[in-house]
């Protein structure tokens, strides 16, 4: 099997995640989709690192994870506080930017 398949898989997952971000209204699910996209990237990184036979890709993936963790923590906190004030987790309800 050609290891490039991993890349195709990553692309597929990434796209699904992106579509999810666009389609879902529930902020939590949107967040999950973001995570999915991140993971897809990680997969790509790892695959590349294997292809080039060095570990840099894995390091980057590692950092991605860390950053993702931080982002999730803050993001979920935001969701919770928004939910507290608006009693809704729908991203469409957070539309203060609307004219």
């Amino acid at each position: 099997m050609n290891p490039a398949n991993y890349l195709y898989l990553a692309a597929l997952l990434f796209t699904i995640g992106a579509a999810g971000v666009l389609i879902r209204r529930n902020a939590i699910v949107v967040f999950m989709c973001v995570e999915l996209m991140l993971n897809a990237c990680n997969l790509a990184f790892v695959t590349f690192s294997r292809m080039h036979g060095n570990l840099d890709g894995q390091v980057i993936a590692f950092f991605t994870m860390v950053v993702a963790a931080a982002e999730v923590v803050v993001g979920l906190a935001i969701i919770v506080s928004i939910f507290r004030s608006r009693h809704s987790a729908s991203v469409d309800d957070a539309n203060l930017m609307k004219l």
Partner: protein
Amino acid sequence: MMSALSALSPATVSLAAETTRTSTGEAVQFWVLGTVAVLGALATVLMKKSVHSALSLAATMIVLAVFYLAQGAYFLGIVQIVVYTGAIMMLFLFVVMLVGITAADSLKETLKGQRWMAAGCGIGFGILLIAGIGNASLDTFAGSGQANSGGNVQGLARLVFTTYVWAFEITGALLITAAVGAMVLTHRERTEERRTQRELSQARVRDGVQVTPLPAPGTYARHNAVDIPALLPDGSSSELSVNSTLRARGQVRDVAADAMRRLAALDQSAGEWLGRKGLRDKGLESSESSAADRAEEGAK
């Protein structure tokens, strides 16, 4: 799973190292688990309840972890399971609980044309990505053998603490900040003085709805479970005695009727035993009489 384990063995790694193609085992594994991953992703997007989305996402992540392992990124594979599937997904689940497990949002689109544009963009983007990968020149395939020769973890450690040490430090700072930020965001200051018992009781008296303390559940009943309302002297059940949450969820087990039936049966047997006919019918009519009987019986 077996093939995944075999992928772990240095032999296959070294074997993978010289060829530009992976072992058949890995291929099989890829195709099987890849399908799972994609399904999981789709489920994440399409499930109505966010709990289900979370679970399916978790599945996908585990699959990815396996893929990492299969590709010689042992450290990442483990971290993926521990941090992502273990920590982050749990965090998600917690939040889902906080926000309400039953809050299933409808998948009906409210923004005009949003869904079509999303689909269009998504598919177009995916096609572009895949096309890009397709005509990228990916002939180099070194394999992770060299890199992992000194051990994958050590290798990573060396890089992280030498080349990427600066980024590493920064990430640490980021994490701290994130933790503090999360705390600040979620922590809620008590804005008004807590109401003392005196105030509470005064309030009760003032609006005179329920002056006395609420009845405890399970009183006058054969059970003492919290989901069973107390029975009033007339045998009917008192809603107040059950936790409001349970009431809201309609999880109150009402035993009033059951109790009546049993009483009736008891009376009958007692009547037969005492040979009193006339009383019996009436006794079944009104609860007062039955109550009276019960009183007598108690007296006995």
